[in-house]
């Protein structure tokens, strides 16, 4: 006989789990005791929210399933923001939570919370295990569900008596997972693919709109080949950055609320929109009626529910993005005559580059540009949420998938720092930088303790404007500069870092940027850079809420 906890650890090992991010508590002690001499590495975070974000960052950087562990009640509840973040961006995470013994379930026992009920809306699926004998099957199913189809988080709730329960040694593990209610479609329908090819062959102004689905399905190479073979310009969403090299001549950059002029004009004027692994999010489309108003739409997605959800589609193709792109490439005989269109979009790109006032003031865009110049795409860049996120998206040149990690769907402040920790364990060979706002960084600043304890070489680049900058920007533009509760008093972040025995530098002048970044990147351990940037700098271009995406402010008008 062996305990449920031992069974659990063995099941995790079978799934190839090497790292768990977690925080202990009473009802998970049997699991922690098993971890004590297991080969699985456990990283003790300082807040369970960070455990969930770290598991998510691990998953995004590696393409594998990230795992977090928390105790029941408050521990489990603290995971929720992280689970919801992963859910909105379709990230494969398995969250393990302790639960009170089955006999006390529903009794409002000490540290009981109905975590399966609480997380139902933000998980792809979840389990309450009531019998230790089910553990092998449940763990196997959970990992399978998390990583297949449209990926997403799965939660397993483990009552204490299940962890301490006895399982017969040598109980056979089910071979393959078979769930009659879950059969994702991977291959696109041939007839739809041919219809799409007809549209592509006839289009004069086609545009690829690519998103996070391309990254999730590891389809970057296929997408690039498609774009080049069919001679179609491409724009990516925030989540799709890095899916196509940022400096590729056909890449128009990001579209949407803070998209480039060339991308947003191209969407408005295209006659065929090829949407690949995207979901027509409102931050992308602006006013939906005026999004790609003259275009036929091809939509490729593994989740049938995304097709037609926000925008009417002419050719729906349900399938894995990689498999569908391969099929399109295999069957493509003729491409459209796009030379004029490629020249036109290229001209927009040249005419309307991203720009900011590059004077001798310390501006956040400059910091990001310098970082981009130093890393040359050979690092993982994580962001927080707000202006820092948009400046990084716009001014850093992402060249490869899985090198850009950000909370796109939920927009979770405090995500970046713990996600960067996860990214480090997924890719220890890569430098990892968290570009942060002073507001966001303070949401999970306690993780300085974690990076200090394990000497995790994450570099934090704070674009410190002493404001909740993005909210202040909206107040400036749409609320008559009434800065209601968005000013943050100065914080000496380097002193805080030092208190955790972490090094740091405060930079107040443009001249010091490059050297400070070089110093941080050359340091072995963690490092905190506090850039005191221009306080009222704004992110432009910007599409005001409710406007069409070609109605940008802060730009040179065509």
């Amino acid at each position, binding site marked *: 006989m062996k305990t449920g906890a031992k069974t659990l650890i063995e099941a995790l090992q079978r799934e190839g789990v090497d790292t768990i991010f977690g925080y202990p508590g009473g009802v998970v002690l049997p699991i922690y005791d098993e971890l004590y001499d297991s080969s699985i590495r456990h990283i003790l975070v300082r807040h369970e929210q960070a455990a969930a974000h770290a598991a998510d960052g691990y998953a995004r950087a590696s393409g594998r399933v990230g795992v977090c562990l928390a105790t029941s009640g408050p521990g489990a509840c603290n995971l929720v923001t992280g689970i919801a973040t992963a859910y909105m961006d379709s990230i494969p995470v398995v969250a393990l939570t302790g639960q009170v013994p089955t006999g006390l379930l529903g009794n409002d026992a000490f540290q009981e919370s109905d975590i*399966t*009920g609480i997380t*139902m*809306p933000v998980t*792809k*699926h979840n389990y*309450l295990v009531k019998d230790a004998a089910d553990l092998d099957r449940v763990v196997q199913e959970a990992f399978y*569900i998390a990583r297949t189809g449209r990926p997403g988080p799965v939660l397993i709730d483990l009552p204490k008596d299940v962890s301490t329960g006895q399982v017969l040694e040598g109980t056979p593990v089910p071979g393959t997972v078979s*769930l*009659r*209610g*879950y*059969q994702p479609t991977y291959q696109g329908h041939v007839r739809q693919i041919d219809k799409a090819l007809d549209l592509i062959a006839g289009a004069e102004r086609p545009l690829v709109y690519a998103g996070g689905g391309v990254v999730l399905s590891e389809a970057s190479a296929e997408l690039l080949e498609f774009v080049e073979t069919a001679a179609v310009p491409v724009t990516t969403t925030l989540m799709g950055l890095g899916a196509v090299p940022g400096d590729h001549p056909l890449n128009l950059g990001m579209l949407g609320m803070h998209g480039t002029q060339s991308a947003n004009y191209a969407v408005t004027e295209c006659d065929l929109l090829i949407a690949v692994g995207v979901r027509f999010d409102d931050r992308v489309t602006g006013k939906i009626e005026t999004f790609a108003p003259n275009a036929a739409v091809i939509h490729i997605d593994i*989740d*049938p*529910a995304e097709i*037609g*959800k926000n925008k009417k589609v002419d050719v729906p193709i349900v399938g894995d993005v990689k498999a569908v792109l391969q099929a399109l490439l295999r069957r493509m005989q003729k491409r459209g005559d796009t030379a004029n269109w490629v020249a036109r979009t290229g001209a927009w790109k040249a005419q309307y580059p991203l720009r900011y006032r590059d004077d001798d003031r310390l501006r956040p865009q400059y910091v990001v540009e310098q970082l981009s110049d130093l890393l040359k795409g050979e690092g993982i860049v994580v962001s927080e949420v707000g202006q820092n996120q948009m400046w990084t998206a716009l001014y850093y040149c992402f060249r490869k998938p899985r090198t850009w990690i950000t909370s796109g769907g939920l927009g979770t402040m405090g995500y970046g720092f713990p996600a960067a920790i996860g990214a480090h364990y997924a890719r220890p060979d890569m430098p990892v930088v968290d570009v942060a706002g002073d507001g966001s960084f303070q949401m999970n600043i306690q993780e300085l303790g974690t990076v200090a304890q394990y000497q995790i070489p994450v570099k934090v680049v704070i674009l410190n404007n002493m404001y909740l900058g993005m909210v202040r920007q909206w107040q400036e533009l749409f609320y008559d500069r009434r800065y209601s509760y968005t000013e943050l008093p100065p914080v000496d972040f380097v002193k805080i870092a030092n208190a955790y025995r972490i090094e740091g530098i405060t930079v107040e002048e443009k001249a010091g940027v490059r050297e400070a970044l070089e110093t941080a990147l050359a340091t072995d351990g963690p490092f905190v850079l506090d850039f005191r940037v221009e306080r009222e700098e704004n992110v432009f271009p910007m599409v005001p809420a409710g406007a069409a995406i070609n109605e940008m402010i802060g730009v040179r008008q065509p």
Partner: protein
Amino acid sequence: MKPHTVSVLVENRAGVLSRVAGMFSRRGFNIESLAVGPCEEPNMSRITIVVNGDDGVIEQVMKQTNKLIDVIKVSDLTERESVERELALIKVAAETGPSRAEILQIADIFRAQVVDVGSKTLVLQVTGDTEKIDALEKLLRQYGIKELVRTGKIALLRGAKTVKSSK
């Protein structure tokens, strides 16, 4: 906007109904009625949901429901030949005298059964489609309905066709 009858075959597990119902409320789908119970297969249940919405909404209802891991099959029975039934129990005020006789007559016309007789009330049981039960309810209202309960609609395809697994 018209009511659609959607038949959902699900795994018979704890919490499945709340997964389905929770998804409906979260996404703002308008449930008119919902009936659930065991079906021909031992490990499955069948949920019949009447939901209101235009074509776009119904398409989302079908797709989002289908996405749930415990959902085995979803079918919209609206445009297909199907048998639909509801059951209602109606407790109606029936003092002895002419009104009681009238009520019994109405019950007869509607093929409703008297399942309880009290000194001042009758309980009628009626099955049929929604319109029939609505009509009976309207007629009985003049006598005073003390209590009423309806099951929500259940439905099956006519003929040999079935709503079976393998989605």
